């Protein structure tokens, strides 16, 4: 007898339709799975056998063939356990194969006791199921919340195989369904408030620079001695970024779900992510990759902040791998059989010490590095990558009296409101260009859209001459000045905006001679 249960295979962030077919015939007892299964899928035979028996069903002592169609798509992971078991139960008549059952898909890993375990990527699977027009989806209970984000899909959370069998037997009728998620309510929950912008004492100039950076989605490089507070700043950056829209939240959730980083029972990632990988990370870990392409840190930081502390210590190949995602906002990973695209629209926040010991240029403490070590350290910064960094920020170590200067009015909420207003101005101006913030303007956009008043033009020309700026550095200054003007709510870029923008350029990090 033949039965079939729909399921989904993940390729990157996308679900691909798979039909799990089971055929049971009276012949010498064997159990084989065909259709390009990987090792984890092959092992599912043992789990399925034990789960069926331990759920008080009968395991047929006949010849069993399971086919995962289409046969040319590689199937990976343990998420086919549940559909294989259900198809088998239908094929042996233990679960009635009523007419409606083709309308219910299933995904889940089985334990030997028949329990159903959570899987990764449930959101992407649910979206795939919805796309192919299947009305219901049986998922592990822990994944129900994220799957329920997909509108128009009946999600049946199950804890064990018997429950799943019951859902299929009834065609979905009478089974528990996951409550639809109130995404709007989730998104509007206030942040926990244990890290806030107003926690940081002093450092007004760094705070201002970072506010400008976030307002225009500019990448930044912070440089300062250890303990100056670079990490403290980075951790508070997501809190001053504009709140996420539902689409953005779902995009972030999809990546985190596939990477298995979504906390069990959580429906939605509602805060912008901050990823801070250690500097020993591999290229694949940072950018994404692997035999089965998995999202790297740059994708996990999608729509949030990628914080790279000890920036010059990262391996060069990993940093070079960041160039394309910074440019395009996504990562494409190509393999022999498949090509996968992960989103990676990030704000890069790099941090470094001014020299290996950290005290170069500090007025109170002396630097103990030989000068060649300082040069060596700085020469590790990749030029092409630095070209994508619009703001260089020096974070000084505070004098004792400055550590008591707290500005309690500038909470994350207050700063976020300013940043959001500035972003809205940008979206209006950049409408139709494909860019979503000033940092992503091309040279043509800068020429066409940024309006400088005559005095600002004069200042820029003088700076170009006196400070020996490159043309590229000038464009960066204009971009940043545009963001400063947006923060000020100004229609045109004034000289004072250009002037402030000039202070965020590189101050010849190579030398402090003279």
């Amino acid at each position, binding site marked *: 007898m033949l039965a079939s249960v729909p399921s989904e295979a993940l390729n990157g962030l996308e679900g691909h339709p798979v039909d799990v077919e089971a055929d049971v015939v009276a012949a010498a007892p064997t159990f084989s799975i065909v259709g390009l299964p990987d090792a984890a899928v092959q092992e599912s035979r043992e789990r399925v056998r034990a789960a069926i028996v331990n759920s008080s069903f009968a395991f047929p002592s006949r010849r069993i063939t399971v086919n995962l169609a289409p046969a040319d798509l590689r199937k990976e992971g343990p998420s086919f356990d549940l559909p294989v078991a259900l198809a088998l139960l239908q094929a042996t008549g233990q679960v009635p194969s009523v007419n409606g059952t083709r309308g219910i898909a299933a995904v889940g890993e089985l334990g030997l006791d028949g329990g159903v375990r959570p899987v990764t990527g449930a959101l992407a699977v649910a979206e795939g199921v919805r796309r192919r027009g299947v009305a219901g989806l049986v998922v592990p209970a822990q994944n129900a919340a994220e799957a329920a984000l997909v509108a128009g899909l009946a999600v049946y959370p199950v804890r064990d195989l018997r429950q799943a069998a019951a859902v299929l037997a009834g065609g979905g009728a009478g089974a528990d369904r996951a409550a639809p998620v109130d995404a709007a309510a989730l998104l509007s929950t206030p942040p926990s408030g244990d890290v806030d912008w107003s926690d940081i004492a002093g450092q007004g100039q760094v705070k201002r620079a970072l506010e400008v950076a976030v307002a225009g989605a500019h990448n930044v490089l912070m440089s300062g001695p250890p303990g100056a507070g670079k990490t403290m700043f980075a951790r508070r950056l997501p809190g001053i970024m504009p709140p996420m829209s539902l689409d953005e939240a779902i995009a972030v959730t999809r990546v985190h779900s596939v990477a298995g980083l979504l906390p069990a029972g959580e429906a939605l990632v509602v805060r912008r992510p901050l990823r801070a990988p250690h500097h020993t990370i591999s290229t694949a870990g940072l950018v994404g990759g692997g035999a089965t392409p998995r999202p790297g840190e740059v994708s996990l930081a999608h729509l949030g902040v990628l914080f790279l502390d000890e920036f010059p210590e990262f391996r060069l190949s990993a940093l070079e791998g960041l160039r394309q995602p910074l440019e395009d906002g996504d990562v494409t990973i190509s393999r022999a059989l498949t090509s996968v695209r992960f989103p990676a629209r990030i704000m890069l926040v790099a941090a470094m010490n001014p020299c290996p010991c950290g005290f170069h240029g500090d007025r109170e403490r002396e630097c103990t590095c030989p000068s060649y070590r300082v040069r060596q350290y700085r020469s590790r910064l990749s030029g092409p990558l630095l070209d994508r960094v619009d703001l260089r920020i020096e974070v000084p170590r505070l004098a004792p009296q400055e550590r008591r200067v707290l500005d309690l009015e500038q909470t994350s909420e207050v700063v976020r409101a300013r940043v959001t207003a500035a972003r809205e101005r940008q979206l209006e101006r950049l409408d139709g260009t494909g860019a979503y913030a000033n940092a992503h303007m091309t040279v043509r956009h800068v020429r066409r859209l940024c309006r400088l008043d005559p005095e600002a033009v004069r200042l820029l020309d003088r*700076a170009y001459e006196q400070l020996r700026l490159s043309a590229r550095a000038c464009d960066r200054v204009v971009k940043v000045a545009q963001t400063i003007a947006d923060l000020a709510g100004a229609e045109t870029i004034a000289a004072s905006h250009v002037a402030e923008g000039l202070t965020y350029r590189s101050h010849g990090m190579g030398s402090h001679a003279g």
Partner: protein
Amino acid sequence: MRADADTPHEDVARAELRARAVWFAELAGWRRGFVGGLAAKCGGLGAALLLEPRAVAAASAARRRAARNGEADAESEAESSAFAAVLARGPSPEAAPDSSVVTWVDEAYPPQLRELPDPPPALFLSGLATAGLEALGRRHVVAVVGSRSPSAYGRELAATIARDLTAAGVLVVSGLALGIDAAAHEAALDAARGRRAGNASRGRPSGGVATVAVLGCGVDVEHPPSNRRLFARVRGEGLLVSEFTWGIGARPWRFPARNRVMAGLSEATVMVEGAERSGALITARYALDLGRDVFAVPGEAGRRLSAGPHRLLRQGAAVCESARDVLEALGYGDLAVGWGDRLTGQEAADGTEEDDPARRVAGALDGGARTADQLAAATRLAVPDVLALLAGLEVDGAVEACGGGAYRVRRGR
């Protein structure tokens, strides 16, 4: 010809003596202490120069054996063979063109160097040779020396002192190493440029040697390589001096020798920063031995780089807080008029600055480097406004960023 102290025989021609002096200098570059030992044995460099070249060769054999007896910094095979080759060749008159070498027998030889117990037989020159030698003989000469890896404080003080000394007409000498040396040379070059411009506008002759660098290698060897641009500037506007012949590379023992020349050339030596065992201390010790003035710039107590200057202070060196201390010791009279303002750059502190925020910011920078935050607190302006004003001042060349998010008044334009 200056030779009254040692009265060379009439029959040895001056040209021959010159060739021998250059030959000695070449030998001195390949074997440490060789010429000094020879002169000591003969009772003076002048007497040594009168030795027949064959006698010199004989003396060298004796010296070489002595050197073998357990000296840690023994000379390499290459140095030994180079020494032997030069020794075998003997003095050659063509080796020493007048324009780029000055020997002990020449009148242009800096007179203050003759006070050294073992003066260099010859100095090899690059840059403004004639004007430089004349300036060394005629102007006040002060050495500014210190650590190769100074703090921002040390760098700033070295530059300020060198700038103000140069502006007052003093010739600043240093060793063209990294750190304090480079800062001093750079500041002197900048200040001399300003001084020349001033002279030209007042119709005075605009010539002048900006600074003199004493090297521990040949004047055509640019060591350390990262000072390449500074080498070019000194060569163009100042003078490079070395007692070692062309092409001789840097070796550890040649630097103390260089320090001896630096101390010998200078009336006063100013040490800015340096550790307990610092080359600058060697210079200061030579200066003390010669009875010249030694100044030390005090540093923060307990810091590694303060150890050198503080040790000098303990031994009786004079305190140097600004160029003024040195200038007073050199006998500059009317320092009270005008100097205070010029040296600390505080003339902007008057009533009008209140109105102009840019001047307020510039005024707040008078006390030294400040971050934008500190400036905002001092001027009661908002941080973005301060940043905008700073950028304007930077474009005008009035201030510069000096690392750590701080800005300072730009010096020595």
